[in-house]
């Protein structure tokens, strides 16, 4: 089966492509982008960084108020978001690796598994453990890595553009559907946390999936959730607390989500379960 991209693809929103059923749909061979020169990588990163910096430098107008708060207060989050989205979009456009059915189903299963882990974690572990950490409020950030696992894991296992976002989104949506403390806010979180991990895979143009990538992706997701939490859920924290919160969230993302999903991916690959996926072919031919 050859994989082709064309503009009529209806499923193109995440993968940018589709798997077509055979030779009848056009010449094969353009499905997988040829090896990209490192220049492209730097270009993507530069463009994305530039976009982010521009937003930061120009700043959101202070004159425009949103319900009494000056819009300029949102400059940093907005710059980050622009950087993330630009990176991912640019990288997806140059990578153009379409999703196969097995990619989608495995990603979905990882997402659903993550959602169930969330459900158990939210219901039985989060409250008591975070309660025990209440002596230093930002300390609860060391637990957030659990919520970042599916995204990084999805990215490492599936190795397709959008895999981190999709997997994390499925996990978060299921968690919200099952019911948790945060309701549908979880879905927004899932989207942004996934994006935080995705940006790392995208910056590496979906070509590197070793442990450094995993740790970086965990850190990316950790930054996102740290910033989000300290803005949305701990607005009453002092600035120092907020900084500590973000820092600990990054540590948690690196250790739990990054290292954890890297180890999980490796263990799953060794069990042979990932054989139909590129991530499952870590061992030599047997």
């Amino acid at each position, binding site marked *: 089966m050859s994989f082709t991209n064309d503009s009529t693809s209806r499923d193109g929103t995440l993968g940018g492509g589709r798997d077509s059923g055979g030779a*009848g749909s056009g010449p094969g061979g353009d499905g*997988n982008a040829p090896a990209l020169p490192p220049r492209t990588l730097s270009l993507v990163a530069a463009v994305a960084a530039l976009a982010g910096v521009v937003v930061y430098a120009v700043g959101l107008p202070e004159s425009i108020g949103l319900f009494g708060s000056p819009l300029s207060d949102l400059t940093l989050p907005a710059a980050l978001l622009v950087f993330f989205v630009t990176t991912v979009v640019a990288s997806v456009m140059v990578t153009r690796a379409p999703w196969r059915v097995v990619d989608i189903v495995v990603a979905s299963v990882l997402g659903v598994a993550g959602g169930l882990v969330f459900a158990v974690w939210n219901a039985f572990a989060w409250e008591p453990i975070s309660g025990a950490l209440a002596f230093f409020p930002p300390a609860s950030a060391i637990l957030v890595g659990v919520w970042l696992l599916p995204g990084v894991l999805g990215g490492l296992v599936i190795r397709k553009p959008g895999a981190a976002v999709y997997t994390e989104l499925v996990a978060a949506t299921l968690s919200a559907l099952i019911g948790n403390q945060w309701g549908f806010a979880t879905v927004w979180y899932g989207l942004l946390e996934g994006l935080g991990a995705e940006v790392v895979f995208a910056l590496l143009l979906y070509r590197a999936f070793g442990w450094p990538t995993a740790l970086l992706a965990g850190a990316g997701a950790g930054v996102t959730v740290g910033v989000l939490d300290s803005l949305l859920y701990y607005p009453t924290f002092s600035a120092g607390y907020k900084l500590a919160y973000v820092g600990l969230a990054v540590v948690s993302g690196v250790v739990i989500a990054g290292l954890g999903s890297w180890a999980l991916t490796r263990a799953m690959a*060794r069990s042979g379960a990932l054989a139909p996926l590129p991530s499952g072919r870590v061992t030599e031919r047997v």
Partner: protein
Amino acid sequence: MIAVRARGWGWRYAARRAWAVRGLDLDLEPGQRVLLLGASGAGKSTVLAGLAGLLDPGTGPDGSGRGSVDGTGEEEGALLLDGVPVRRARADGVREGHARTGLLLQDPLTQTILARCGDDVAFGLENHAVDREEIWRRVEVALRWVRFPYGVDHPTSRLSGGERQRLALAGVLALRPGLLLLDEPTAMLDPDGAALLRERVGEILDSTGATCVLVEHRVGQWLPVVDRVVVLEPGGGAVADGSPREVFAGHGTRLAEAGIWVPGVPFRPDRRADDDRRADVGRPDVGRPEAGSRAEPDRPADVGSDPENGPLLAARALAASPEPWVRRSRRSRREAESVRPAVRDVSLDLSPGTVLCVVGPNGAGKSTLALALAGLVAPVAGEVRAEPGLAVVDGHDAGPHPRRWRPRELVRRIGTVFQDPQHQFVATTVADELAVGPRRLGLDPAEVTARVDDLLERLGLAHLARANPFTLSGGEQRRLSVATALATRPRVLVLDEPTFGQDARTWAELVRLLLGTVRSGVAVVVVTHDEPLVEELVAHGGATVLRLRDGRPVPGAGAPGDPRPPHGDAAPSATPRRPDRAAAAGQPVDGSRIPAGEAR
């Protein structure tokens, strides 16, 4: 009614060095029904996946197909359906709303796609863009074809394996494929479910005239359905081809050796020339101190051979249910509690060196009984009682209730082999897997290594010692799961469907292994649908048979077929042991109190 043509076709999976199939030349006339045979690893399933157009060589980063990122392997030669390359045929079929092929796989659980039966059958039709009214019309027809007993809104989660498999068949048939591909469709079904599916497939092929390619280990039962047999060799294409009669006459013995159940070729472990050696392989000498060589610190004076030793394990008026939290149905709690237990009114004794076969139709409570005897689910009523001969090991009395034993105590006393070997694996290598149990017993490392090496050697797994258990073949996984249970030298061994989905070779190995285990003084409980297995165990292991129906022992039911008394050189038992009858009558049983020494 599709013609198939293969010319030098081959496929190699990514990450494999060997070709799964290579050099396949094959022509099938429209309407032919072909049985594809071959040892495990001969690429039968690969051929079916190829015919279904599902093997995808990808294009690779360099467009050569080599080391491709997206493809799952490498292809050579040509595979055509009515002259059209398979993958294009599949895509054309989807676009035209008329599927070329329909593929039925082995595992019923993974073929159910959606939550409602009707939706599940409709799934393929939706993908083929069939109009809504036509979809539901075809769904109805397909469900009727397979004699599906439920309506379209019935939840798929409540189906049995056989029902699931027929639902999957309906989903395939609704597409009206011209080529039906069946990949061991009955391997995981009980005999009734398998017979029903076979019957349906035969009728449907008669009425539609579709071409059919079938892969199946248990050949005999499918013979009425097929008119041609093709034998594949690993990486070697077709090595025999012809009518069933010709192929079996010419290649029967070789096929049998390759693990295929060939009609007319007896496959009895005791009749094999190399039986003695093999039987020894299958006899890990559990429970018997070996002459001098190894210290057996955990083994008290040979329990099995002590004629004064009574039963190890006894059940009295036992009733049991699967653990409540997994009850499938979403009934109210009160309603759920009033549901009768899965198995009840069972009384039996297990003595050293005896075999109990638990048989009966699906849903009769066989597995629940096994789990209760194995100390894995608690009795709802009555009791499972461990006698001192089982409860006391090394002077440590774990108490009379196996369900309350700690895992460490349990594993030393009762070994359990689950239906799916993968459920039991807890380690990352075969050697570690075998070492888990002995380590839990606190044996010293030298003894652990000795036991592991011994089992690896005896079960022919030595060359796989460093492999990940999940990557083994089905037969190897089964042998390993039995070996892990034997590694702690338990006095009772409980096996749930040990021969399920196994080829003839693994089957024979298992029979040898079980008989050897019994002879070494272990009490063995086997839950099974497999009537030949029961016959073997009755004939050569002196097994007693407990038949369950609707959760209760069936009065007067013995071994399948003729309720002959146990015989055979392996078990020179004196008294007919029929705990099932006694149990059915509600009396305490004493029949199986056979001096174990005599069973040697």
